[in-house]
Each structure stands twice: as C-alpha cells, then as structure tokens.
C-alpha cells in the first residue's frame, strides 16, 4: 500500500438548505493521479475549494503530508504544497512569461521590502529551466502572455504550479477552453508530471481524458462520494452509471 498524501474525512458543507458536501471521505496517495468526476452540482467544485482553502468546511478533517491541516485561505494550502491551476487562468496578461512564473515569489538580488531589487536574469534562467522540465516550449520568455495561445498560457499556469516544491497540483477542467491540438499538448504536460512523481487531482467532464491521465477515478453525486475505482478495473460505462446514479437505482 502506498503512503497517503491527502486524506479528507467526513467533509460537510451546507449552503442554506443544500448539502454541497455531505460526509465526504476522500484520499490521494503519493504520486497518484486522481480524477474527480460527477454531474454539474454534484459537489466537485465545493470539495476542491475546501481542499485548496478557498472555502471553509462546516465539518470534517483534512490531513495533508502526515499532519492535520486547517486552511483558511488558498495561501495556507499553497504554503504546505497544494497548488491550484485555476480554470479562469490566474495569470497577468501584460506581464511576460518569466514574470508570471515568479509572480508573488520574485527572486531578488537585494531584499529591501517592497524596494527589493529583482534578479531579472536569474529569474529568466530559472524560468527557462522550469519550462524545459515541465515540457513547455515558449520561444521568448519576454513575450507578454497576451500574445500567446490558450494552450501555451495553460501550460505556463501548470509550470508555475509545479515550480515551487509543491506536492499536489489541483486542476479544474484544465483543457475546457482549448482546441484539439492544444488539449493534446496540455495532456502531454500532465503526463510528464506523472513521470516526475507529482500527485495530481483533475476535475474534468471529459471521461476520455480522465481514463487517459488518471490512476484512480472518484465519482461524486449529490454531495456524496458515489464511489472510487481503479482505472484498470473499471469501464467508462461503469463510471457513467456511478455519475448518473443508475447503480443506486438498480
């Protein structure tokens, strides 16, 4: 049995009378690529937001990397090694590639609070290494992001998440806004993460992608975990039955 990286026990969250998460037990092992699937409104986003500190659960415990954690902001989660790649791409379009990769974590030559002098060359060099390591190809690191394609921008967002000693990367619909070729490119980058031993949680509607990229598939339905299956031992049809609740009825 591999060591567990993240464990969530009995997570509950109510919005008014609606239980968005109800007694959710969930776990991710070291190096594991996990998919979270379910219908719209099944509670996937709520669970992800709780795991990343964006919202506070009403009940339940989160353990990460062997310790009980209480995340109150996304920065808390990031500090212990949980990075999120946001669906709406949290990038600054006017800044260049290197500046975005280092945003909020600038490398400085001299530290003087806000007047700290930026180490431009060092950051650019490290940015190049980071992109190479993640398999992202950008011809010019000084290019502002607004001149790059959607796939390149998503790749940069992923590379940024990888770069900071993170242990788990959470991606919400990583290819939803991309064309066929760009989707293939971003999927290749996610596959590279597997080879590097990075744990990944992907929220996706695309079952083809889920089977392609993940080891384990978790299904949520009406705020509860409907089940989790090893990819090897399950068919797409089984997953669809879990999503729609056909198994429960039968």
């Amino acid at each position, binding site marked *: 049995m591999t060591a567990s990286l993240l464990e969530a026990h009995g997570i509950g969250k109510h919005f008014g009378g609606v239980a968005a998460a109800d007694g959710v037990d969930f776990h991710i092992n070291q190096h594991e690529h996990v998919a979270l699937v379910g219908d719209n409104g099944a509670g996937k986003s709520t669970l992800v937001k709780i795991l990343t500190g964006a919202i506070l659960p009403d009940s339940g415990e989160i353990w990460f990397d062997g310790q009980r954690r209480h995340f109150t902001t*996304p920065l808390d989660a990031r500090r212990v090694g949980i990075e999120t790649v946001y669906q709406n791409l949290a990038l600054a*379009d006017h800044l260049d590639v290197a500046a975005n990769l280092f945003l909020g974590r600038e490398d400085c030559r001299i530290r003087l609070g806000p007047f700290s002098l930026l180490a431009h060359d060092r950051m650019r060099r490290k940015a190049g290494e980071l992109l190479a390591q993640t398999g992202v190809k950008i*011809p010019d690191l000084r290019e502002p992001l607004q001149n790059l394609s959607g796939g390149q921008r998503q790749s940069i967002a992923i590379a940024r998440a990888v770069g900071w000693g993170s242990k788990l990367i959470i991606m919400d619909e990583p290819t939803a806004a991309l064309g066929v070729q760009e989707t293939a490119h971003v999927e290749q980058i996610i596959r590279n993460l597997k080879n590097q031993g990075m744990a990944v949680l992907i929220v996706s509607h695309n079952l083809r992608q889920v089977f392609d990229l993940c080891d384990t598939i978790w299904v949520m339905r009406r705020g509860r975990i409907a089940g989790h299956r090893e990819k090897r031992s399950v068919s797409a049809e089984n997953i669809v039955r879990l999503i729609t609740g056909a198994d429960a009825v039968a």
Partner: protein
Amino acid sequence: MEVEVARSAGRVSGQRGSLRVNRILRLDWLGAAFGVALVFVLLSVLSPYFLTSDNILTILVQTAVVAILAGGQTFVILTAQIDLATAAVAALAGAVVGMLMVHAGLNPYVGIALSLAIGGVVGLFNGVLVALARLPAFIVTLAGLSLWRGLGLQLTSGYDSSPMPDVIGFLGRGDVGPIPVPVLIMLGFYGAMAVILRQTKLGRYFYAIGSNEDAARLAGIRVRPYKVAAFLISGLSSGLAGIVLIGRLDSSGGTIAQGLELDAIAAVVLGGTSLFGGRGSIWGSLLGAVLMATIRNGMDLLQISPFLQLVTLGLVILLAVGLDVLRVRRFVWV
C-alpha cells in the same frame, strides 16, 4: 499597427533576429518617440526658430512640471486607477508652503519637505478612500480637484505670495552649467521612478495589479497596500511639482497649475500607458510630456491662435486614447 506587426513577427519567431525586432516593436513608448521625432522634423522645417538650443531648453523647462505630475500619475494609471487631483494638490502644497516661506520666514529646505509631506498626506488620503473604503478613484479625486485647490485658496485667503526664497527660485529657474535645474530635477525624478518600476518588486506588483487584480491576489500579493502606495507616489510627485512651479513663477498661490492634471494624464496616455492598467512605461510619460510641450511651443512659434491650440491638443489626446482603446480591443478579440 505596432501590435499587428509585433504579432506577425512573433509567428515567424524562433530566429534571434525576429525576436529582437519583436521586442523593439513591443516597447510601449515607441509611438510617443515616433510622435516626438515627427513633430521635431516638422517644426524644424516650418520654423527657423524651433531647432535652437535655447528653444529646446525652453521646451524642456516647460515640460518639467507636467512631466513630474505625469510621472506620479503613471503609477496610478498602471494600477488601472486615475488621479484627477494632481494639479490641485500641487497648488495646495505650493500655496501653503510659499505663504509660510514669504510671510512666516519658514526655512526653504523645511518648506520643500513640507510640500512633499502635504502631497504625501493627500495621496495617502486618496489611496485609503479608494483601496480601503473602495470608493471609485475617479470620484474621490474629482472631489479632490475642488477640495484641495479650494483649501489652498482658503488657507492663503486667495492672496499670492512673492518673491520666493533664492533656494526655491534656483530649483525653478536656476542653471547648472547649460542645463536648467528643473530639467535636472525632472530627469533625476524619472530615473528614480524608472528604477522603482523596472527593478523593484513594488514596480512589478503595480503592473501585476493593473493587469489582473485577481491573479495578483491569488499569487499572494496584498493588493490594497500597493494601491495606496500608487496614490502616495502620485501625491509626493504633486508636492515636488508644486515646489518647482512656485520656483519658476517666483510666486505662489492657490490658482497655480490650473488644468495641468489633464495635461499630465494626456502625457501618460500619449506615452503608451494604457488607461485600462497593466501596460506602459515611465519613459513614455516623459516623452508624452515632451510631445505636449513641443506641440504647444511649435504652435506659439507658428503664431497659431490659442483657441486653435486648445482644439489641436484636444485632438491629439483623442487620438492617443483612441489608439489605446483599439489596442485593448484587438487583444480582446483575439
């Protein structure tokens, strides 16, 4: 057009040469530099008095006050806000400090510090209302336009004070060798601002916040103190501009610097800084201010009526804002 060319250059990129061309075409101040060059050539042909060292220095002296206001304004506009009160704050600081120096024997060095302090306090006030109380910057500083100038007039009972102490006169009218002191102050100020904007974390965060405030917040940047800081820098610039202006006029009062806030905003926009935030450069603002002063100077030399001068400058500003909107729109459509 620059953007178009830059993009097609990007497509064939890969070779070093095209990367370099791409980088040059991407410079925000390129348009303003082109404008200054064009106006210089045009006026040199049209007027024999234009291209003389005396006239060029006159243009630069006339640029100084607007350029300093524009420098502070650049920080505010880069964070996607606006400061309409810059000239009114310069008038408040200049009027109060001038009166105290002339009538109360205030030491001029203390006067300089006081002028900066007044500008800084008003800047903080604006920044706190905008960033912490979340009032729209346009409204806060529009109110300030009336508030600070009115306060300056009230505190000086509407009287002008003169003459200024020698130290202040030197800052506004003096020379070091062949170079006028206000021009040196302007260049020193821009050098310092350029270092802040390009080399420090502070500058990087102004760009990031103006580009995508949510992204900046998610990256762990505390957005609100930086927004306040942008207004603080603008306020300090106003204090500096106030001192240079009363030195040049050799007189202070609540009516100085009328309308210069709009010249400063125009200079920033002409310099390629986007009113939508996130894109621009400090040197562009200097070029923009030089462009405005050069067009004014040229029209004086060509004896164009002051009414037509107003019309012309208005059209120039419209052109600059129009280009900015077009650039942003093209980006959205892509």
